[in-house]
C-alpha cells in the first residue's frame, strides 16, 4: 500500500545519512568521551564535531549548546534553571498556545509559589505585543514563548518579543522545536537567551534534544551529577544520538532553502486544492506568518478521528485537534484559545510536510481526502442541515 506521511510536526523520518553516521558508535566506537584513553578520545572528537554542526545551524558558539534527551527536557532545563537562578523573581510569562512541555510545567509551577501570565491569542493565533508589554514586570524571571506553533504553524514575532523582554531585564526562552530547520535562525543577531530544539522533528532520532544558552545567561543545572556539558547537564553523553543530531543539523542547513521553496509550494498547492474541493472548510491560523510545511484545516460537520482513520485506511498519516483523538476529552487547547467555533474544532486536520514529501504524495492526498469528508458528511446529522 502507498504510504503518505503528512504528520511531520509529530515526528519525522530519521534521515538515512543520520542512521549511517550513528551506527558505528553503538558497537564499534562505544567509548566514553570522558575517558583518557584513545578509545574515548575518538568518540570525544565526534561529539565536538556534532556540537559544532548544531551551533552552525543556529549560528552560535558551540559552547552555547547543551545536549539534552528531548525538547521537553530542554524546556524544563530552561525554565527551572532560570527560576533557580533568580530566586527573588516569582513571575513567569507564557502564552496559552504553548506546547504542554511548557504550558503544563508553568501551570505546575504556578501551583507552587509562582505566578504565571498566559498571554491570549487572536482568532488567527497571533499574540498582541501590547499584552506582553503589560505582563512583563520587574518581578518576571522568564518569558517563554514558542517560536512556531506545532498545531497551526503560526510563527510569533520572536525578535520583537525578545526586545520587549530585554528592555524589562527578564530572560527570554523560546521553544523552537518546530522552527529549527524550517526557519533560518541566527543567534548572533537574536534577542533569544534560551532556545529549545528537538532531534526527532528534524530527521534525527527520538531521544535527543538541545538547549541553546546564550553566553552570560545564568542557568542553574536541572540534572546534577558529573561534569558533562560543562556541569550544566550531568549524565554520560548519549554519543550515537548526539552524532545523529549533528548530522541532522548539517542536513537541515543544506535543506532549509528547499523547505522554503519546494515544500512551501507543495503545502500551498495542497491547501488551495483542498479548499477548492471541499465546501465548509477553513484554514486555522495566520497564513502569512506560518511555517512553510504546515496547514491546519477544519471541516465543518465532521469529527477529526473519523477523518484520520479513513485517511489512515488509504495510507495517509495526519493528525487532528479533535477531542476524540487526544485521549482526553478536551479538544485542542490551541484552537480553543484562538476562538475557533466548536463546529470547526472537532473537525480539524493538521497536515505537515517534510523534505521527504513528494508531489505524488500531494496529488494522492488531494484525490483521496475530499471523498472522505463528503462521505462523513453524509453520515452526519448536521451535514445536510444547510
Amino acid at each position, binding site marked *: 500500500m502507498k504510504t503518505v506521511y503528512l504528520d511531520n510536526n509529530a515526528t519525522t523520518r530519521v534521515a538515512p545519512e543520520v542512521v549511517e553516521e550513528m551506527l558505528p558508535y553503538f558497537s564499534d566506537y562505544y567509548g566514553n568521551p570522558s575517558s583518557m584513553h584513545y578509545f574515548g578520545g575518538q568518540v570525544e572528537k565526534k561529539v565536538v564535531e556534532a556540537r559544532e554542526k548544531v551551533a552552525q545551524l543556529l549560528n552560535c558558539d558551540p559552547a552555547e549548546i547543551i545536549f539534552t534527551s528531548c525538547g521537553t527536557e530542554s524546556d524544563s532545563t530552561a525554565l527551572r534553571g532560570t527560576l533557580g537562578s533568580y530566586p527573588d523573581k516569582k513571575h513567569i510569562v507564557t502564552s496559552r498556545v504553548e506546547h504542554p512541555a511548557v504550558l503544563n510545567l508553568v501551570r505546575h509551577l504556578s501551583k507552587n509559589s509562582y505566578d504565571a501570565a498566559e498571554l491570549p491569542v487572536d*482568532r488567527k493565533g497571533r499574540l498582541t505585543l501590547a499584552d506582553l508589554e503589560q505582563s512583563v514586570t520587574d518581578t518576571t524571571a522568564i518569558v517563554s514563548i514558542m517560536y512556531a506553533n506545532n498545531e497551526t504553524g503560526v510563527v510569533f514575532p520572536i525578535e520583537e518579543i525578545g526586545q520587549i523582554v530585554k528592555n524589562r531585564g527578564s530572560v527570554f526562552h523560546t521553544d523552537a522545536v518546530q522552527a529549527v530547520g524550517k526557519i533560518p535562525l541566527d543567534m548572533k543577531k537574536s534577542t533569544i537567551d534560551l532556545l529549545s530544539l528537538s532531534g526527532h522533528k528534524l530527521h534525527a532520532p527520538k531521544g535527543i534534544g538541545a538547549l541553546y544558552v546564550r553566553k552570560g545567561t545564568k542557568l542553574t543545572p536541572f540534572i546534577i551529577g558529573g561534569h558533562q556539558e560543562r556541569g550544566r547537564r550531568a549524565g554520560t553523553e548519549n554519543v550515537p544520538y548526539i552524532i545523529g543530531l549533528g548530522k541532522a543539523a548539517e542536513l537541515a542547513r543544506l535543506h532549509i532553502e528547499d523547505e522554503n521553496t519546494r515544500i512551501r509550494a507543495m503545502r500551498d498547492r495542497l491547501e488551495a486544492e483542498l479548499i477548492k474541493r471541499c465546501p465548509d472548510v477553513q484554514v486555522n491560523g495566520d497564513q502569512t506568518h506560518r511555517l512553510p510545511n504546515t496547514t491546519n484545516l477544519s471541516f465543518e*460537520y*465532521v*469529527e*477529526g*478521528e*473519523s477523518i484520520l*482513520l*479513513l485517511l489512515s*485506511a488509504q495510507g495517509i498519516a495526519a493528525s487532528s485537534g*479533535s*477531542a*476524540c*483523538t487526544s*485521549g*482526553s*476529552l*478536551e*479538544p485542542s487547547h490551541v484552537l480553543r484559545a484562538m*476562538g*475557533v*467555533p*466548536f*463546529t*470547526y474544532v*472537532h473537525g480539524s486536520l493538521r497536515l505537515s510536510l517534510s523534505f521527504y514529501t513528494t508531489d505524488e504524495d500531494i496529488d494522492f492526498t488531494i484525490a483521496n481526502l475530499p471523498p472522505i469528508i463528503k462521505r462523513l458528511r*453524509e*453520515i*452526519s*446529522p*448536521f*451535514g445536510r*442541515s444547510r
Partner: protein
Amino acid sequence: MWDYTDKLKEHFTNPRNVGEIEHPDGVGEVGSLACGDALKFMFKLDPNNRIKEAKFQTFGCASAIASASALTEMVIGKTPEEALKISNRDIADYLGGLPEEKMHCSVMGREALEAAIASSKGIDITKQLEGEVVCKCFGITDREIERVVRENNLTTVADVTHYTKAGGGCESCHPKIESIIAAVQGQTRQEPARRQKPAKRALSNIQRMKLIEETIDREIRPSLRTDGGDIDLIDIEGTKVLVTLRGACTACPSSGFTLKGLVQSKLREFVSDDIEVLVES
C-alpha cells in the same frame, strides 16, 4: 492509537442503515456539535409493532459511528419493549468491546434508543434526564451518573468518565462523583429499590448548549443569511454566550448592534432570561 476491534472497524468503514426515515414512528437525538459527538436515531414499526426499519446519523469518532450502526442492526425485528432491554454494555459487546475511554459512545446509543422509543409514545425524555448537574464541563447530571454506575457496576471516577465524560474536564466534581458511586454501590447491596430524587427544573449544561444552538439555527441564522452573513457560536460559559460573525456581517457597521439586539433577545426568550451575548470581533 485506539485499540479497536475488527468488527468495530468494519462497522465504521461500512456503517449499516445510515440516513433518515420518512415519517418515522420514533426519533431520538442526543449529544450536540459542541460536545464533539451527536447521534440522531429513528425507527419505523410494522403492523405487528416490531421495528422494521432503523436508521441513524452520527457526528463523531469511529466508535460513535460503529455504535450507532450496531444499534440499528440490534433493534430491527424487536418490539420497542424488547429493544429497551438493550443496554449500553450490549452495544459494546456486539462490537466485540469498546476501549474503556470510548464507552460513552455506547451510552449515547442507548440514550438515543430510549429517547426514540419515548418519543413514539409522545414523551420527551430530556425531562426525565433532569437532575442536579454534577459535571459542569460536560453537563452531566447526578441521575445520569447514578444510572451508568448502576447498570455497568462502575466503581471508580475514571470509569464514570469513560462512560459519560463526567469528570473529564476540570475534575472539580470528582469528590461528588465518588460519593454518588458510594451511594449507588451501597444501595445495590442494601436496598435494591432506589430512592427517587426530585427532579430540578434547571437546565443541564448540555441541554442549555443544545437549546442555544437550536435557537441560533432557527431564530437567528436565517435572518442573517438573507443579508449574506452568518453567525458562529464560539463558547458558552455559564450564562455568557460568545459568538462571532461571518461573511457580510463582519463588514456591517451595525453588526454589533444587530447581534446584541437580535441574538440576546432571542436567546433570552428561548433559553433563559439571564443570557448575556458577547460578540468577538
